[in-house]
């Protein structure tokens, strides 16, 4: 009898969780839509920028590359390997399919 009650309890709990999950899926889809509209709305798009001072205040490094690229641009970082001179080489590849990529070099000094 006890196990049967446990089964009924679990079924009710799983039904609740199903409703919760459906609600989360809906809220997530709504929010993604809202963010997409914000990114595409000319009146807010025009103000969606940061300045080089913002970047310098946010990061400690001395050399900063700001890479502006259209949504969907692919960034690829191969696992670093030893170069010919025994020094590790680190690489970043950027590939856009819809618009040119712009890079701003920010040298703190």
């Amino acid at each position: 009898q006890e196990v049967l009650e446990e089964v009924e309890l679990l079924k009710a709990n799983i039904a609740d969780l199903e409703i919760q999950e459906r609600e989360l899926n809906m809220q997530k889809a709504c929010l993604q839509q809202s963010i997409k509209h914000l990114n595409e709305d000319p009146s807010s798009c025009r103000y969606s920028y940061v300045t080089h001072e913002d970047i310098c205040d946010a990061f400690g490094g001395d050399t900063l590359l700001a890479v502006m690229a259209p949504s969907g641009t692919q960034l690829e970082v191969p696992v670093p390997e030893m170069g010919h001179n025994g020094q590790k080489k680190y690489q970043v590849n950027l590939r856009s399919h819809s618009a040119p990529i712009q890079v701003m070099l920010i040298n703190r000094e």
Partner: protein
Amino acid sequence: SSLTPSTAYTYKFTGSPSKELSDINQMIRQGGV
């Protein structure tokens, strides 16, 4: 000379979660281990 990557980590602008960049940073810090 471009490296012949044994494996490469990727990230898509506006499409990937920030966590993918954290994974890349961790891999770089660990020297590609």
